[in-house]
């Protein structure tokens, strides 16, 4: 069964900390995506990647960066966490860019 694994289900960090959210897929997919999910706003695309060492900005990249050093791993980095980045973060991957497999999410709280 295909899998997208997000390293933490719940995470609590302090304002100003550098935060790493990790996403690993075991399906040899080229394409990976990071979303944040907020009530009343749905899922919003932060960054995506169509190949190793490649990245593209989504709709809300401010305050975030990403790293894709290996095909199976796509990391989301909060350079200096702020309270408005408290949210649920969802990672997804796809082979042909039309069928996504999602991870089960990381609920991040910044205090």
């Amino acid at each position, binding site marked *: 069964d295909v899998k997208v694994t997000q390293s933490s289900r719940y995470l609590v960090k302090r304002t100003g900390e550098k935060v790493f959210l990790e996403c690993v897929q075991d399906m040899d997919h080229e394409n990976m*995506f990071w*979303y944040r999910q907020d009530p*009343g*706003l*749905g*899922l*919003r*695309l932060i960054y*995506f990647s169509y190949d190793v060492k490649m990245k*593209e900005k*989504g*709709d809300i990249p401010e305050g975030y960066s990403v790293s894709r050093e290996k095909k199976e791993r796509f990391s989301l980095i909060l350079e200096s966490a702020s309270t408005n980045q408290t949210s*649920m973060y*969802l990672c*997804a991957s796809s082979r042909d*860019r*039309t*069928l*996504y497999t*999602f991870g*089960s*999410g990381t609920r991040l709280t910044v205090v």
Partner: protein
Amino acid sequence: AQTVTQSQPEMSVQEAETVTLSCTYDTSENNYYLFWYKQPPSRQMILVIRQEAYKQQNATENRFSVNFQKAAKSFSLKISDSQLGDTAMYFCAFMNRFNGMRFGAGTRLTVKP
């Protein structure tokens, strides 16, 4: 940029009844994909149904069907014979092949016994 609008934040339906969730989108493109995803309390995003814009026939998956109106840019989801397990958040999504999937704000559906 494409936008997806779900105008019903919450809906409820009696078990075994039929319910329709609305979705509209805005795009200038001709080739794209539309999706409905279900997100139960487990948070796992589950694909319910997918529609390719070039196909005129509405997609169907068991109790789930869509009404795709390309000219009106409308993509509604009909759930027949609603079951308690259908209780979840439902997200409508739009995608072309190049820029990632965009989602609506979601509709929280409650199926009542």
